[in-house]
């Protein structure tokens, strides 16, 4: 296990992605977990070192596959538990017809792209809610519908996935102000009052408390942010194990 942070590596000295990965490869690695600010970086690296297993740990605005996996893993765990079963026993069946609402900065979110793929692959229905500027420029081909009434969608949902407003990506310019975003698309205490007590609330973190979600809501029993973090460990262990071992049978 080799950890490389940009701040302490030659990337800071202007080394190209190809050279960085070639250097790491020369140390003798079987797999690389890459988190990168540029969309497509993991795909590019897989071309540069085709003999190395590349695990996408999040690339730009594109995909965050392990987050998508751990989110559906968490939902399955909760639903199975409520049904008095183990997740491994229920498989994906509890997702059939499950109503999932994803809220916030869809446009700039790699988590949204992976979550939508994961939920719909398992049979859930996904709707998205966001200001017009934070929706993708073109949703053609996305298996989602855009909600017209946020309050109604909140009441409709079995699962609410909130997204971080990514101010470091210049999201600030896409809404007039954070307080206006909160007023229109925040999961405030007032809005949360209409939720069914069983509605699952998720957030990939780090949360902007008071922006996407009020603290009181974030700390409710049906908000599972810390469970998401916990589940990230076994899910990512499984991804590493399966990809390096090469097959399910060997695992």
């Amino acid at each position, binding site marked *: 296990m080799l950890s490389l942070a940009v701040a302490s590596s030659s990337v800071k000295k202007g080394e190209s992605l190809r050279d960085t990965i070639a250097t790491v490869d020369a140390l003798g690695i079987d797999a690389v977990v890459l988190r990168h600010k540029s969309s497509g970086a993991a*795909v590019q690296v897989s071309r540069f070192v085709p003999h190395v297993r590349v695990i996408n740990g999040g690339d730009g605005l594109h995909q965050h596959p392990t987050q998508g996996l751990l989110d559906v893993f968490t939902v399955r765990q909760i639903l199975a538990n409520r049904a008095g079963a183990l997740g491994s026993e229920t498989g994906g069946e509890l997702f059939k017809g499950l109503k999932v609402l994803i809220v916030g900065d869809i446009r700039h979110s790699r988590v949204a792209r992976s979550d939508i793929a994961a939920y719909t692959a398992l049979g859930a229905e996904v709707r998205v809610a966001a200001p017009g500027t934070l929706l993708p420029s073109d949703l053609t*081909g996305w298996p989602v519908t855009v909600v017209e009434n946020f309050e109604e969608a909140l009441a409709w949902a079995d699962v609410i996935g909130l997204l971080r407003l990514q101010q470091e990506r210049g999201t600030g310019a896409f809404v007039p102000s954070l307080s206006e975003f909160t007023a229109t698309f925040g999961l405030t205490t007032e809005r949360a009052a209409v939720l069914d007590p069983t509605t699952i609330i998720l957030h990939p973190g780090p949360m902007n408390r008071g922006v996407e979600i009020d603290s009181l809501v974030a700390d409710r029993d049906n908000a599972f942010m810390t469970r998401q973090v916990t589940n990230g460990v076994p899910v990512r262990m499984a991804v590493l194990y399966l990809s390096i071992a090469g097959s399910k049978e060997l695992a």
Partner: protein
Amino acid sequence: MTLLLRGGTVVGPTATHIADVLIRDGRIAAVGQNLDATGAEIIDASGCWVGPALVDIHTHLREPGREEAETIESGANAGVLGGYGALVAMPNTEPALDNVALVSYALAQGAKTRLDVAVAGAITVGRQGESLAPIAEMAALGVRLFTDDGTGVQNPAVMRRALQYAAPLGVRLAQHCEDEALAAGGVMNEGAVSARLGLVGRPALAEELMVMRDIELLRTTGGRLHFLHLSTARSLALVQAAKAQGLDVTSEIAPHHFILSEESCEGFDAHFKVHPPLRTPSDVLALRAALLDGGVDAVATDHAPHAPELKDLPFDEAPAGMLGLEHAAALTLEVLRDDPVAFFQVLSRGPARIAQLRAIDNAPDGSAHGGDVVAGEVANLVVLDPHERWYVDKNALASRATNTPYHGRELHGKVRATIVRGRLVMNEGELQ
């Protein structure tokens, strides 16, 4: 040197016929049947097209400033391999070609190469879009095209002033149409594909709004305006409409915009990153239709060499642009294989008119391009086999750079010989 091109299909401005072409002392001496070849080097042109050497009005030669990617000499060699007899060097070098000294340098370097190098001067100082460059002084050196290409002149007041200034000088301004405020940060065409890939988009609207703006500016100023690398169906329609209204507007399209679409960006390979970006498949079809029905004046390469390490950067960080000179003819044949007259119209005669390189434009020193293939014309000619099959190999290019998006692609149609001012400068893939 006496050359005889034996038995080719001679492509004139309106029709073709099979004939020998005899070249002597830099000019076409005779065109006819069974010409006497005594003392001449004979090139068997049977099955080939013989037409005016190609003219590229949109070449980035990178010298001065980026010689690791291309030099005027290496770019010229790429040109003659691609069938070109003349290139117009774009001014977005480092520093920009925005004054007499730098333009003179580029022209002098160009004069040492195998083909004719013309220069496009910058419209504004340093291509900064603020104050006018010395357009009249550069025009006195023979510069006939002016552009800030790389980006367009963003400020409409500056563009209007430039058009007003250029109009009486008889030169043509050429615009890279993209409103940078709308295109801000974009790295590929904005649409369903960019949304899925998580890449920031450059909307078609950014191009089309500037096309609209500049047509309206030209309507008030008069003068001549050329639209560089148009990439959308709407842009082409706008320019066609302006032309029908009598405005002196011309247009070019680049091979990558009618060969490749935005779907090529799926693999995040920066070799497919270019400005304006690769567009939708329906735009590609519209550009092809325009080639077939005369809806564009020129095919221009936008040959844009970049060092390999820069194209290995992540997609959003890599520079935009791709090579074009060595494959443009074969790629254009994919659309115009059945129409040699149209082929030479868009790759030689049309661009020569736009850049004022023809005999009737008073081209200097008998270096006229884009003419007819008849006795007396300057012998700037190309011989190409419209069917020969070959494969693009990025490691076998004359360009110093390797950033072709076509590596491995099967091409049909190959340039066999290029003749500049009567001299055989390329024969069967070998520089002479």
